[in-house]
């Protein structure tokens, strides 16, 4: 079959052709970018924090009437209260381990500082998020130690929330260790934290631990975390608790009661929106709510969009079939087989959709570039565009099939009738 008659016919329906092609081009541009956004969001949501997230929950609480000063006596008093709380939590029958923490991955409450190889470096080698907790922090988080050792109770210090004396030993993530010491021999090496003049020694390396912030400002150092064996004493405190397998709910219930029994002078929020005791799964869902919502919205829009475009093609092609009813009859009478008529309409659609797809590729890339510029989006791999082209071409063929079959079923006898 030659393309000539198809092209000649198309020239007589310029408006319809342009409309279908335009619709396909726009659909392609939006669908490619939407699928790319969905893919990125899903990837973000699914990345593991490095912790063993099952059976974990976090307690956030505020002391009432606790000392607020920075003097030693106040800090010692706060530390005693902190230790009592941790001991209370550890003694619960449903609790496996518990630790003080200043923050956790995904909760967006960050302590960020520079890490350098020399004292008073002008530009630190890397920015990193700092986690402070006692000797059970690693175990409670469920981190995987890949080199060196964990903290012991002898390592653990305490200090006021505003004090700056860092301990002499730290544990870092593998990503940070590799950045600081590319040869992979970080354990035993010294680094300088923030503006300290005295070094801290890396005693251990953990496989992975995400920083608290999921926002874009932290994307340069998502895997750069430093752990310090320090209980931070402040007027508020956070505890990370690992429940025994399957005992999460029971542990959370008993934790609240036990903490209030130990010391009632505290606030643990219990509203639905801002609960002081939350599972890590809940914290994770909350952190990625916007990403999840975005992925859902984009998926819904993609599906509706493809449906609308498909329906539009069905509508216009049906109109053309109706319009050419007589011509089809003539072709059939002159010996064209049903399959020829079917092929005619399918080829015609392929031509239009192909033209639209070429425009769509340009639009899709343009939209992506614009999004990169305006919204710090990443560059879309060509694969997405190609997949999008395949999808719209397939959609066109599927949509044209029903009207084309109706055309193929036009009997040759139509040619003999007037109107």
């Amino acid at each position, binding site marked *: 079959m030659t393309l000539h008659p198809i092209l000649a016919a198309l020239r007589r329906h310029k408006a319809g052709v342009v*409309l279908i092609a335009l619709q396909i081009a726009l659909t392609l541009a939006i669908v490619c970018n939407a699928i790319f956004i969905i893919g990125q969001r899903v990837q973000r949501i699914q990345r593991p924090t490095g912790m063993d997230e099952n059976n974990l929950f976090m307690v956030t609480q505020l*002391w009432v009437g606790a000392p607020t000063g920075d003097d030693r006596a106040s800090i010692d008093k706060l530390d005693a209260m902190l230790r009592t709380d941790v001991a209370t939590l550890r003694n619960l029958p449903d609790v496996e381990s518990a630790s003080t923490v200043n923050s956790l991955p995904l909760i967006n409450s960050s302590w960020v500082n520079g890490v350098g190889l020399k004292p008073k470096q002008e530009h630190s080698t890397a920015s990193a998020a700092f986690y402070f907790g006692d000797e059970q922090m690693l175990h409670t988080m469920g981190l995987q130690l890949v080199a060196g050792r964990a903290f012991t109770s002898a390592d653990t210090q305490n200090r006021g929330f505003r004090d700056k004396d860092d301990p002499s030993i730290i544990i870092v993530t593998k990503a940070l260790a590799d950045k600081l010491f590319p040869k992979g021999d970080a354990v035993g090496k010294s680094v300088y934290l923030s503006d300290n003049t005295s070094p801290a020694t890396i005693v251990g390396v953990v496989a992975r631990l995400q920083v608290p912030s999921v926002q874009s400002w932290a994307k340069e150092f998502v895997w750069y975390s430093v752990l310090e064996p320090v209980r931070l004493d402040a007027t508020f405190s956070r505890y990370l608790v690992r429940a025994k397998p399957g005992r999460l709910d029971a542990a959370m219930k008993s934790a609240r009661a036990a903490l209030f029994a130990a010391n009632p002078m505290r606030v643990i929020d219990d509203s639905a929106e801002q609960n002081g005791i939350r599972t890590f799964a809940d914290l994770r869902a909350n952190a990625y709510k916007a990403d999840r919502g*975005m992925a859902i919205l984009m998926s819904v*829009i993609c599906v509706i969009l493809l449906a609308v475009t498909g329906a*539009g093609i069905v*509508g*216009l092609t*049906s109109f053309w079939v109706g319009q050419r009813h007589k011509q089809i009859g003539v072709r059939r009478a002159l010996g064209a087989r049903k399959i020829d008529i079917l092929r005619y309409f399918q080829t015609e659609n392929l031509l239009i959709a192909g033209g639209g797809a070429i425009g769509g590729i340009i639009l899709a890339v343009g939209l992506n570039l614009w999004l990169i510029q305006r919204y710090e989006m990443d560059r879309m791999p060509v694969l997405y565009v190609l997949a999008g082209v395949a999808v719209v071409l397939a959609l066109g063929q599927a949509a044209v099939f029903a009207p084309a079959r109706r055309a193929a079923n036009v009997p040759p006898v139509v040619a003999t009738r007037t*109107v």
Partner: protein
Amino acid sequence: MFAYYFNLALRSLGRNPALTTLMVIAIGFGVAASMITYSVFRAVSGNPIPDKSSRLFTPQIDSWGPRQNLQGEPPEALDYVDAMALMRAHAAKRQTLLYPVSLPALPDGNGSLPIRATGYAVYGDFFPMFEVPFRYGNGWDAGQDNARAEVVVLSEEFNRKQFGGANSVGREIEIGGHEYRIVGVAQHWNPLPRFFSLFGESGFGESADFYIPFTRALDLQVYTNGNNSCRGKVNDTSGWDNYLHSNCVWINPWVELDNAADVAHYRSFLEGYAADQQRSGRFAWAPNVRLRNVTQWLEYQKVVPPESRISLLVSMGFLAICLVNTIGLLLAKFLRRAGEIGVRRALGASRREIYMQFLMEAAVVGLAGGVLGLLLTATGVSGVGLLFKPQIARLAHVDFTLVALTLALAVLATVLAAFYPTWRAAQVQPAWHLKTN
């Protein structure tokens, strides 16, 4: 004539129910998607204080230096030293410093459990500057600022929770372990986005529970509940005094400037201040200051969540595709009736009448699409919680404007889309069609 064309439109649409349904659904979905995302966008990008947004300014001073600042931009809050210097200079009509605090509160000792309360440490000017409405009592004055008075203004919501909504002015409340005398109860007041405190806050929180004097909060060494960012030459920050004199920024400053001359004057004051700091050796760099008003500040702080902009954009694209689709379908529908048009034209109908008839038909489709879109929008807005954080989702709602806008958008867009098909229909040559049929 109007009724006649309306009637004709209904008949014509009834003749091809499948095609009509398709158009209505496409418009309904397109309009609904745009409206749902618009309702969120409208909520987050609104002007929180329309009548004063061009007269309230937040000064920024670069205390970090070119090596540490935000790629040339000064830090987004002030350190204590600069903040106090601005207050002392008093170069604006009204001025306040503020920072968010979170403290346990106990209503006068009835033995109930303490609750966590959030509020702001502010100067007395805060209330007139930001036009805080009062239900009972008032704010406090500069005298009480200077006296570091233990006074507090409660929000209406917090007053209801703690005092059952009664006039609590003159009573005492314990906040953070200290007694405060209540001098005022504000009426419901929660401008969103909360432009005045964006350093470490999303801008879309519930209204604050209380306001206490900044000077008093400093005396009690209450730390900020917002961001605290330390860069530049970081000195020892242990202990309150060291902290205050460090390079850590955490204070939001606001000034009210009535006209361009005042703004220019204040800007040169800021430049002068920074130049003084350079001369005295505290800054080793040229003055780098900013003075942004509310609108510019919201823009600079990118308060509108990117999800909102992107989804609005995608929905617009979606609507555009739905309209292209409608153009195609209307074209098919109208041209199929070339014969009918030919007859009408031959019987004396002018092109104008053809326009009227077919645009009317499009308007009916648009109206039906609008009604469907309205239903979908109502459903969608209640499901916005899936997509956005609750404090943002809460802001999206269906109101009269949204309903009117949905219907108007649907009808207008469809009629606009119908112009080309109608033009084609009006071009039909009556003679030609009468001959062939």
